[in-house]
Every structure is written in structure tokens, then in C-alpha cells.
């Protein structure tokens, strides 16, 4: 065990009623990757946000190398040696790559208030090259680069000054294979330089693989720390949830015969730059899994089928041949879609739970052509409760809900609409095991009721566990189809992804 680098002492934090952190004390050592895990809402982000100056802690101290750190904001944090890579996009379009990298640190290039752009670009380029990202041009505006590259630029931005502490908060979920590789390289480099990487992820395999030590939070309370060697996924789950839960929340049945009644058939669908002439069929009562690397176009497939993609070519039809060319079409024919991008596409987060649940069903809720607020409330309440959503009431704003509960609202909406063709894109992304279990159970129930589900997911285990049939995509094309079986191994799928 290396020597102590950072001591978090009795960190306490409230958000109004929520006690996000309850006197958490953890020590982090030099030269280690220290994972921080816990259910959603357990306080991981809050802790690290307090450290890096995104939030302000109520009480407690962070001791870094013997002296206290208290960051006013991220840049201030950087100057004190702590950096964070957040989950969301952290770069600003309209600015050049260099301006992004040095945002908030211009002063080093500023003389008498004049900014030396040339020097700044040169410096930025040096850093980019040193990370091996020399194909990125520091002088160009960041808009010229895709999501993946912008993430890499962020990594550079938050590590070029060799912080003593680097926080990586749920970043991997946002990254594709390539991105992850690069990220892990950087993390290891930091470790070898004697810094400490605080690594937050919901992917337990990944966690065990990458980290030396693993600390667990539960409901804002520090549970304990175990070493990589002691760690198994089950052990971690138990620590996180506080009780034994086996692997059995996936469906257990195998070899059930899928009806050959086709309910959706997709023919030669293309979406420029995303899907390339793809055809597939969904059968009644089937769970069709679609997997692949996150840029393989699978997320667009969901949109394309739901009639949401702009400039879609090819045809999407129901069993009876009715074409689906727009979202209203789709909804009218009882299709449902839960997007990967929950906060922007699935939910109007600045609106109430009630409105969010009722929106697609407004017409159905009319009594004699009249829509009354009362009916809406009752309707929303019924299904929110049915999904056991944690809320103060249906008038609560969705923005105040936790990720998992947000997802529950999304599902409540479509169950309320009583859809039988359901497209779920990354249904359990950033959601804890309990909620996960609920969602899987629900999917299974629906399947039994003869509803058909398309599940698009980056989590291989989930695909193996839930799908009757799995399509693996690569470069916008289908690259392998697998039927449900116990013999099926994740490696089989991965081979077809890369």
C-alpha cells in the first residue's frame, strides 16, 4: 500500500432535504486507481464534485499532501492539483480546441491583457501530440471534431498539468471502445506518475479490472474499501445494496419458441452516416437485442424505426404493411420509444411528471372531446405509482427526479399508452441494480403478454440475459445474429463488434 495522498475527512453535504453525504471519510493513496462505487444517488458525484469545486461542501476537509484543498470552481481546483472529467460534454463549440483546453487559464498567454493566440495554439498542439492525438489541430474550432474526439480533448484539458488527483466520473458510459482505451492509457500514466485516479463507474467488471482499490458508498455513507484482489462483482453488489442479490435478475428461461408473426419489418433502411441499408424483422412476443459499439449506428436504428430520424431512406412497416414514417404514426400504432438521451429526448425535464406521462395520451384522455386536468392527474398518478416512482407527487418537476426515477417516468408514459411495440435504447444506463431488476422483470412480463420489445444496449450481459435474439451491428450494418442460448458467450458477440 502506497503512502496517503488525499484524505477526505468527515465530508458532509445536504441538498435541501437530501442528505447526500454523511460525514464521509476516505483515504486515497499515491500511485493508485481508486474506484468509487455505489448505487445511483449514493453520493459519488457529490463527493467528487465537492472535491473539485463543482459543489460546495457543508463541512469536513480534504487534505491533499498535508495541506487542505478547497476549490471554488474546476479551474481553481486544477490549480490546487485536482481535476475531474465529467460525464456530460465539457467542451464549448464555437471556440478553438486550444481555447477550450486553456479556458480559464488564458493568463499564462496574456501580456497586458493581450492574448497571444499563436503561443496558445502551439502549446495546445504540443500537449495533444504528447498524448498521441496529433491528428487533432489545436487551431481549428472544436466543432470540426466528433463527440469521441471532443472527449479526448477534455481528457487532455484535465490532465496536461499532471494533477495529483484525477476524477473520472462515469465517463466510460459515454465513450466507445477506442475512447475507453485512450482513457485507460491516460489513467495508467497518471498512476505510474504517482498520482491518484478516482474512478467512478457502474460497470463492475470494468471497475475490478482497472482499479487497485475500491471504496463503496451507500446512501451517502462510506461503507468500506476493499482491494482489487478481494473484489468480485457479487461481493461489490452486496456492499452497494447492503444485501445478497444474485445474478438472477435476468430471465432464466431458454429455448422458448418465438412466434413467427412479424409485427415490425424494416427494409433497406439507411440514414446517412449512421445506418447503411439495414433490414430486420421483429416478431410478436419477442425481445430483440441490438448490440455493438456505441458509434455502430444502433442508437439511430431505434430512432429510425420510431420514425424519428430525419432523412431516413427505406421502409419501416407493421405486420399488416402500414408504413411508419413519423413519430405520430408510430405512436398511433402503439409504438413506444425510450431514448438513450433521457434528459433531452425521453423527457421534458422542465415539466411536471403529470404532463410528461400524459403527453402521448392526451387524445385518449379526452372525455367527450374535453380534457380535464383531473383526468390527467389521476392517469399520471396511476401509472407513476404502478412503476413505484419515488416522487413527492405528479406535480413534481422531472428535473428534480433521480436518473432511475426519470426512467421510471418514461416507462410509465408508454405503459399508460398501452403500447405493444416497445423500443428501449439503453434502458438501464446509469441506473442501479434495484431499478434494473424492476425494469427487467417488467420487460419479461410484457413479453409474456405478447408485447414485442427491441432492446438496444451497450451492456453485453444484459443482451445475453434478456434477448430472444441478438443482432450485433458494425459500421451501420448488421454483423452477426445470435439466437438465445445458455452456451452464448459475451466473447462471441464482442468478436463481431470489433
Amino acid at each position, binding site marked *: 500500500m502506497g503512502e496517503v495522498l488525499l484524505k477526505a475527512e468527515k465530508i458532509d453535504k445536504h441538498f435541501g432535504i437530501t442528505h447526500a453525504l454523511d460525514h464521509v471519510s476516505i483515504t486515497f493513496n499515491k500511485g493508485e486507481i481508486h474506484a468509487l462505487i455505489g448505487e445511483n444517488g449514493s453520493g459519488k458525484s457529490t463527493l467528487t464534485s465537492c472535491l473539485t469545486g463543482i459543489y460546495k461542501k457543508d463541512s469536513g476537509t480534504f487534505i491533499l499532501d498535508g495541506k487542505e484543498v478547497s476549490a471554488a470552481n474546476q*479551474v481553481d481546483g486544477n490549480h490546487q492539483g485536482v481535476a475531474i472529467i465529467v460525464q456530460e460534454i465539457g467542451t*464549448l463549440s464555437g471556440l478553438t480546441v486550444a481555447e477550450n483546453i486553456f479556458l480559464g487559464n488564458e493568463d499564462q498567454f496574456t501580456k497586458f491583457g493581450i492574448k497571444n493566440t499563436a503561443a496558445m495554439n502551439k502549446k495546445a498542439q504540443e500537449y495533444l501530440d504528447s498524448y498521441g492525438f496529433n491528428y487533432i489541430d489545436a487551431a481549428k474550432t472544436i466543432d470540426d471534431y466528433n463527440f469521441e474526439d471532443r472527449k479526448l480533448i477534455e481528457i487532455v484539458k484535465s490532465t496536461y498539468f499532471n494533477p495529483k488527483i484525477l476524477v473520472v466520473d462515469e465517463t466510460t458510459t459515454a465513450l466507445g471502445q477506442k475512447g475507453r482505451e485512450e482513457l485507460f492509457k491516460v489513467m495508467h500514466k497518471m498512476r505510474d506518475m504517482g498520482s491518484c485516479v478516482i474512478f467512478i463507474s457502474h460497470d463492475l467488471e470494468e471497475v475490478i479490472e482497472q482499479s487497485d482499490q475500491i471504496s463503496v458508498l451507500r446512501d451517502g455513507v462510506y461503507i468500506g474499501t476493499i482491494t482489487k484482489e478481494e473484489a468480485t462483482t457479487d461481493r461489490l453488489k452486496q456492499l452497494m445494496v447492503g444485501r445478497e442479490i444474485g445474478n438472477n435478475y435476468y430471465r432464466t428461461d431458454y429455448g422458448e419458441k418465438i412466434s413467427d408473426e412479424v409485427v415490425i419489418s424494416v427494409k433497406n433502411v439507411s440514414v446517412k452516416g449512421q445506418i447503411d441499408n439495414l433490414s430486420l424483422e421483429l416478431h410478436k412476443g419477442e425481445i430483440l437485442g441490438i448490440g455493438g459499439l456505441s458509434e455502430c449506428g444502433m442508437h439511430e436504428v431505434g430512432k429510425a424505426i420510431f420514425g424519428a430520424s430525419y432523412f431516413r431512406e427505406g421502409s419501416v412497416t407493421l405486420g399488416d404493411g402500414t408504413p411508419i414514417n413519423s413519430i405520430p404514426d408510430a405512436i398511433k400504432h402503439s409504438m413506444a420509444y425510450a431514448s438513450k438521451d433521457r434528459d433531452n429526448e425521453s423527457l421534458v425535464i422542465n415539466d411536471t411528471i403529470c404532463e410528461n406521462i400524459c403527453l402521448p395520451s392526451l387524445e385518449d384522455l379526452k372525455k367527450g372531446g374535453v380534457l380535464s386536468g383531473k383526468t390527467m392527474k389521476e392517469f399520471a398518478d396511476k401509472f407513476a405509482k404502478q412503476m413505484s416512482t419515488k416522487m413527492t407527487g405528479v406535480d413534481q418537476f422531472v428535473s428534480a427526479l433521480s436518473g432511475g426515477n426519470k426512467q421510471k417516468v418514461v416507462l410509465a408514459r408508454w405503459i399508460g399508452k398501452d403500447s405493444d411495440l416497445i423500443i428501449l435504447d439503453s434502458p438501464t444506463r446509469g441506473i442501479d441494480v434495484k431499478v434494473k431488476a424492476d425494469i427487467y422483470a417488467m420487460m419479461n412480463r410484457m413479453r409474456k403478454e405478447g408485447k414485442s420489445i427491441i432492446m438496444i444496449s451497450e451492456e453485453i450481459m444484459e443482451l445475453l440475459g434478456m434477448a430472444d435474439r441478438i443482432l450485433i451491428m458494425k459500421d451501420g450494418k448488421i454483423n452477426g445474429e445470435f439466437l438465445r442460448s445458455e452456451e452464448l458467450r459475451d466473447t462471441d458477440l464482442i468478436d463481431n463488434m470489433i
Partner: protein
Amino acid sequence: MKKLKQNQYFGIILLLVMLVAFWAIFKLLAPATFGSPDKLATYMKSALIYAVGGCGLYFICVMGPFDMSVGANIVLSSIIACNASVRFGYLGLIIAPILCGTLIGLINGLVYIKLHISSLIVTVALSLIYEALSVYATNGKNVILDIGFRAFGDYPANLILAVFAYLLCAFILKYTKVGTYTYAIGSNEVIAKNMGVNVPKYKVVAFTLAGLFFGLQAILTISFGTSMTSASNLSSMSRNFTPLMGTFFGLAFKKYGHPVIAIVIGEMIIQLMFNGFVALGAPTTIQNVVTGAALLLIVALTTKPVKGAVVK
């Protein structure tokens, strides 16, 4: 063509083409009475005044907020300038409006930030107040700038001052932190904040800077017009639009870089049209129609509609 589009001067070329096109049209229609060099020079007299305001407004609009008090600011600053020139001569004429304009900008910014209300509302409410003050500042006479202090109303002084303003604007945008942060906030306030940009502070800075430019415009305005009357019932609002038009050009051509040039040429185009119509002996009332339409089309042509983009 693709290649040309890449070129960072594409925007400017486009603008110049339009400028020449408009000039050519009117020149054809009214060869005798329109568009000889000396005439162009007089057209540009008012263009360069409004462009200064346009530069100021650009700082605000590029960040997202708006300023509806431009007119009130210019009226009040011009009056102050005129009164000051009586006592302190040219010194007063220059310093007073700059101070007044900047102060008003600062007040706008502070109220907007502190009250956390839409800048649109704040600046309308404050315009009411500034206008009232302008009445007190004139007590019902129209202040007239003394014949001795009108240098900034004519070449070369007006050109020098205006060009100074343009350069200042371009410089701040390109070579200072303020410029970067202005764009950063415009791009995404939340991220900018997390990156340690003091968003409220730089919003106030932008409003204050804008105020400074309106102060400069006031100097040119009073020098060119040589008199100013107090405004009331938001009549000063009508003064918002000509600078705003320039700003729209700036925003529309932002992606090509060089917004300042866009603003200046934009204002020139507008003045060109005004004088064109006079030269044609056409009723100048349609000038508004054409200006509005032309502006709308130009903005439409320069913005590429992205399917599904959220546009408020």
C-alpha cells in the same frame, strides 16, 4: 465552391458582392443622381455611426441576452455630451457620453444579473427610466451642439473615431479573455461556469462594454445631427433597430469570422438602400419594407436550417 466556402474570407467576399450588387442596381436605375464616390462618402457618414452601436450590441447578442435600451442610452448620452461640451468643450463632448454610456451599460448588466430577470424586460424597464431622466436633462428644450464642437460630425474626425471603435471591438473579441469568454458563454453557459468562467461577471462586462460603444455612438450621433431632444413613451426604442440590424449581420456572418466587418458592411448596405430610394425619387417609406425584407433574406441565406435544431 466548396474550397471557397472553406476560405475564412468567404463571408466578407459574400458581403462585398452584395454591397456592390445593391450599388450597381441603384446606379443603373439612377445613374446621374446616385453612387458617385463623393456621394458614397456622404452615405457612409450615417452608416459608420450605426455600425459603432452595432459593434456594442454584438457583445450582448452573441451571449444570448438583448439590450432594448440602446436608444435611450444614446439619447441620454448625447444630451449629456452636449451639455458637457458647453462647459468642458471637446473634452466634455468625448468623456461625458463615454462615461454616461458605460455607466448605463453597467447598470443594465448589474440589474440583469442581480435580479436574474430576462435582459429584454430589464432593459425595457430601464429605458422607461433613462428616457424620463433625459427629459429632466433637457427640461423641454432640444439641446443643440455648439457650432464650434462639430468636428466629429464630418470627415475625417468621425471616420477616425468610428474606425477606432471597430478596431477596439475586433481586438477585444479576438485578442482578449473577454472575447473568448463572451463566445464561451454564448456557446454554453453551464459548461463555461464549470470551467471557472465567472459568467455573471462577464455578462456585466459585456453590457458595460456595449454601453461604452453606445457612448461612442452618441458622440458621433450628436456631432452629426448637432441636436437632440429628450425621448418619452419608449419613443427611443425606434433608435434600437438600425444598430441591431448591423448586429444581425454580425451574427449571421459570425461563423466566417470577422463579425465587425460584417456589421460595418451591413450598415453600409442599409444606408445604400435608403439613399438609393431617395435618388430614385421613390417614396422613402418603402425603404423600411426593403430593408426588413433584405435583412430577413440575407439572414435566411446565411443560416443553414438544421433539421431538429431547437430554435426559440
